[in-house]
């Protein structure tokens, strides 16, 4: 009887956070699904040699390290829920920019490490890397990567400030990370997805965080396509900025500065 009561109380704790229940369920079924898609696709992907696939993953690791901002947990948990935001709000300097500069410092450090890693890879396996040769393409790829960084930053800011409304943020953060892992191309090149799914996913903002920057550096896109990627990046950047502004305006009124 005593154990049953304790079990029921544990249930209560779990039920309290509704979003988490859903996300853990989703997490469980998603990995096997992806594996099926991957192995079905991997056997016959026109236009992808095994070298290109290898260098795709190596580049994805590096680009992910440099571009993918990770501030949402800090913003959501430490700042908004535990009240750390208060000391920023009291300062005559924008919170957004302070976090941006902080994240920029992180990404630059990661970038240095990433580039060192790249140099080591290329040194050891010179033949393995498929890399864009034309300076035009390289230049545009760098621009695409920078805008991708801005995009992930704003996107993660939006996810972070959802904590103004959510009392339990873990669910939302996990869900976002799952979406990013799958739809940004981190798990596999989006070209490996069934073409109807690829069509949809390549219009979503996630694809512009990792996938397109990576294949741009790989030299798999024409100059025209590169411009199209840039256009889409700016489109999503604009949308995300608008959403962020609106959410911040409303959210800051909800802020309770607890724990302070």
């Amino acid at each position, binding site marked *: 009887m005593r154990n049953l009561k304790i079990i029921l109380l544990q249930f209560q704790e779990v039920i309290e956070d509704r979003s988490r229940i859903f996300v853990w369920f989703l997490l469980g079924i998603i990995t096997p699904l992806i594996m099926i898609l991957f192995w079905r696709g991997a056997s016959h992907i026109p236009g992808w040699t095994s070298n290109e696939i290898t260098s795709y993953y190596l580049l994805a690791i590096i680009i992910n390290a440099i571009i993918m901002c990770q501030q949402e947990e800090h913003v959501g948990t430490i700042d908004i829920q535990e009240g750390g935001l208060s000391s920023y709000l009291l300062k*005559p300097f924008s919170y957004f920019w302070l976090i941006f500069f902080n994240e920029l410092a992180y990404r630059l450090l990661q970038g240095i490490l990433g580039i060192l890693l790249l140099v080591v890879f290329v040194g050891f396996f010179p033949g393995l890397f498929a890399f864009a040769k034309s300076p035009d393409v390289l230049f545009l790829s760098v621009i695409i990567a920078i805008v991708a960084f801005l995009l992930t930053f704003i996107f993660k800011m939006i996810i972070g400030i959802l904590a103004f409304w959510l009392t339990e943020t873990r669910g939302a953060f996990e869900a976002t990370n799952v979406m990013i892992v799958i739809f940004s191309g981190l798990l596999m090149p989006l070209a490996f997805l069934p073409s109807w799914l690829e069509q949809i996913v390549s219009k979503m903002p996630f694809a512009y965080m990792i996938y397109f920057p990576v294949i741009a550096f790989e030299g798999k896109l024409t100059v025209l396509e590169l411009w199209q990627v840039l256009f889409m990046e700016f489109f999503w950047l604009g949308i995300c900025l608008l959403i962020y502004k609106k959410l911040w305006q409303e959210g800051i009124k909800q802020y309770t500065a607890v724990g302070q």
Partner: protein
Amino acid sequence: MVISVSHLSKYYKVHQKEPGFVGSLKSLVSRRYFDSKAVDDVSFTINEGELIGFIGPNGAGKTTTLKCLSGLLYPTSGKVDVLGYTPFARKNVFLKQISLVMGQKNQLWWDLPASDSFLLNKEIYEISDKDYNQTLDELTTLLDVKSVLDIQVRKLSLGQRMKCELIAALLHRPRVLFLDEPTIGLDVVMQQKLRDFVKEYNKRYNATILLTSHYMKDVEQLCERVIIIDHGKVLYDGALSDIVKKYAKYKTISVVFEKEIERSKFEKLGKVIGVEGTKVLLSVPREASSKVAAKLLDTFTVEDLNIEEPNIEDIIHDVFSHHKR
């Protein structure tokens, strides 16, 4: 007038859950919320250079009020004006003139020495080199922390850290300072040092200071005027000395007789609150206290006699418990 608050209210939305497993299942489907009134129709004004004590029990609404005044919280209703600005707009010109120091939390970088956090604030508040050096020198001397500025903050003691927090909050010389429990967790010596410092800062810069504290000593030593708040409402706003007059209707006379005396002989002079051998404690109306004392001295042979004001802490405790009823 530096601060003006009129009919300020701040409600928090709180999710209510019935206890037990069935309650949990219910909350999975639909959740009930109610408003918790942290601050409920509060009004007051504060003039430049005043040092005011804001007192009340836990959850009375003190901190919430300070947070509304410093622009952290969006008021549910009412009007707040600090230095001519609406705090919640958090304009830079406004933020550069205020500071809020909260006892438990910190703005200092944990892994770097305090001096690095000070430098960050110097840039954020756009303080000139000259002002920065002068203020930093004054503050570190006043607080006696010159030697610890280059030590990693996590290695500092609570007292040292609190002092560094204060310096970080005061580098831009705020005209209005909100102190929330500045002495919490500090030892008696450190509390006294901090009090002296707050008084000195108030005098030196003619700064307006609003301070909350659980320690009546903080308030007694620093503040001429107090605002007492409970359940989100202002119970008293006025001179600290007037609280005694207003709420303490009685004084205590403690008298030691030469030899034990029959109770009936002094019983009619006042309410007997204690008899201990030759020592007797009488509670008498304030205005009658000197008359009663004279009578005691006239009638009996007295070894010692004291007229005591009741403890201010007790009076305030009385005020709160009256309010509850």
